[in-house]
């Protein structure tokens, strides 16, 4: 099979079970993201793929070859480190050439490949500079070039954007996505930034306590979160507890109709704040009369809290809402995500 397979990976540090029995197939040419809060084991998993950490049990298979016991220098996998880890005493050219020179690639080929990679990442002008003379964004591109020039089968990215400011980060995320699509290489990204994961990934694995909790395309994971953790970690959500009886969902704030009957009798539904519409008149189904208690102005939109609930909603159209206003909320059945708990 082409691609990377993780089979039953376990890792403990002392008493901490950092990674628990993770098995996952990552297809060749896929942009795969490990998303989770800090301490969820995502970086440990990445380091085990890189060969910088040894798993307690489990196997790693790359393109059909078992690389479980191979050290990092024998794996055709390269990493972009969180702090970039550029060699401070080498200039940009020598930094990028490092991997090729380690493998004793002939000089002319090294020059050509480094030049091509630097140009692809718009670093052609920087070859003679040293890492301390670069901005954060440039350092990040150099780290990317240093890994990509080796044409790895899998490129690992360990929170590569955490050191960039918000505006640059948004730009770099899109560039990274385009680059990956152009190269068609397998990228595995580790991040705790849900926006980043949604923007760049083909598939996301949401991790918590060393386990993959949910796995799927960004839309699947965002639109159909499996449980409270995923619903709240990716974006925000109104989580409403209740009982399903006689085809209706009974909650403390009202009775709602669902699109499909859930698999449980007592459970939770999630509604994203931006899925709720504001209506002047009572909606036909799932209407909720609520009073505005708080408005947070965010420029592009308003975040509004209401009672009963409290229900949070996000809107970009109703800018003339005041605290104390009574509104009709439209919680349409198809906008309600039913959780597995």
């Amino acid at each position: 099979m082409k691609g990377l397979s993780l089979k039953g990976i376990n890792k403990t540090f002392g008493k901490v079970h950092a990674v628990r029995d993770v098995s996952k197939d990552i297809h060749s040419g896929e942009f795969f993201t490990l998303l989770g809060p800090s301490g969820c084991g995502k970086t440990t998993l990445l380091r085990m793929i890189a060969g910088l950490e040894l798993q307690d049990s489990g196997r790693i298979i790359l393109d059909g070859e078992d690389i479980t016991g191979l050290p990092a220098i024998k794996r055709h996998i390269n990493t972009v480190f969180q702090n970039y880890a550029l060699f401070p005493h080498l200039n940009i050219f020598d930094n990028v050439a490092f991997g090729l020179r380690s493998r004793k690639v002939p000089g002319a080929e090294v020059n050509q490949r480094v030049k091509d990679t630097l140009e692809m990442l718009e670093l052609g002008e920087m070859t003679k500079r040293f890492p301390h003379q670069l901005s954060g964004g440039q350092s990040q591109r150099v780290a990317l070039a240093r890994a990509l020039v080796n044409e790895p089968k899998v490129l690992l990215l360990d929170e590569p954007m955490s050191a960039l400011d918000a505006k640059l980060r948004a730009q770099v995320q899109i560039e990274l996505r385009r680059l990956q699509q152009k190269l068609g290489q397998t990228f595995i990204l580790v991040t705790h930034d849900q926006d980043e994961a949604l923007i760049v990934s083909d598939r996301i694995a949401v991790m918590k306590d060393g386990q993959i909790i949910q796995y799927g395309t960004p839309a699947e994971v965002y639109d159909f979160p499996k449980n409270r953790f995923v619903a709240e970690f990716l974006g925000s959500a109104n989580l409403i507890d209740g009982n399903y009886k006689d085809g209706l969902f009974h909650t403390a704030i009202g009775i709602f109709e669902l699109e499909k009957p859930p698999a449980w009798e007592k459970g939770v539904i999630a509604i994203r704040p931006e899925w709720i519409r504001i209506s002047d008149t009572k909606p036909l189904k799932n209407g909720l009369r609520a009073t505005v208690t708080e408005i947070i102005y965010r420029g592009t939109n308003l975040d509004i809290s209401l009672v009963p609930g409290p229900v949070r909603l996000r809107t970009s159209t109703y800018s003339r809402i005041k605290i104390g206003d009574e509104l009709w909320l439209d919680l349409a059945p198809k906008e309600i995500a039913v959780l597995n708990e």
Partner: protein
Amino acid sequence: MNKLIIWYGELITGNKLLKRGVFFLTPGMLWLVLFLVLPGFILVLVSFAGRGTYGNLIWEFSLENYTRLIGYGIFGWTLDYVYILLRSVWVAFVTTGLSVVLSYPLCFYIARKPPRTRYLWLTIVIIPFWTNMVIRAYAWFLILAPELPFARLAAFLNLVPAGMPLYPSAMAVYLGMISMFLPFVALPLFSSIERMDWTLVEAAQDLYASNFRIFMHAILPQTLPGLSVGIILTMVPAMGMFVIPDLLGGAKYMLVGNLIQQQFGASRDYAFGAAISIGLMILTLFSLYLYKRKNRGIDLI
């Protein structure tokens, strides 16, 4: 100058600040002039003087001491003194080199220990510091004594006659010198290694680097500051060391330190002793200059 300025939170005039600086500086400067600069000048002066019959100084300008140092004597031309000087440089060089080679594994070992036991290990490295050098040299006498396994093993291998101690010998000098100077290299090196960024090592591994390449690109550049301090702290005093070569090398392994000591002691030839000292000083400064040129951007101080 009388304008008010803010100096680290204090409101003060420039004049006052200057006066205060001079006040703080004077005692130290005085000390240095009195006990370093002045004796240095006297040494230079003496080196151009001559020796009287009873070991007194004769104040007549001559270059005789220097010509003698580079080999022109009453018995024709020999390179004995130059050999001794070069041998001293060689011994200092080997001592420093071996201390560095031994320090790296030692420091990595200690740096990998958990903080609780790390300082215990460091203390073990430092303890010899607290012991007088002469006592330590005599300790080697005991270790290298003919009755102990080391000398017996050497005798068994026919390296020395049975019943002989392993001193005085060149090897004993190296043993003594390295045990003396190892902490001078290990401690500054440790402070660099302790603060090392290991992700650079991981990056090098990730980029297929051999162990040699990892050392050259990920470890050496990061530990160079500590290593430099260690090398200079060892190289400079090792060149002029005389206690250990005297005790452990005896007449068999004369170094420049012993030679100087001899001139000021038994031979009572102060002028020649001063000339050798100046020669050693020039050699030391030249070595430092070479080191500085090879490692641009490294602060020697």
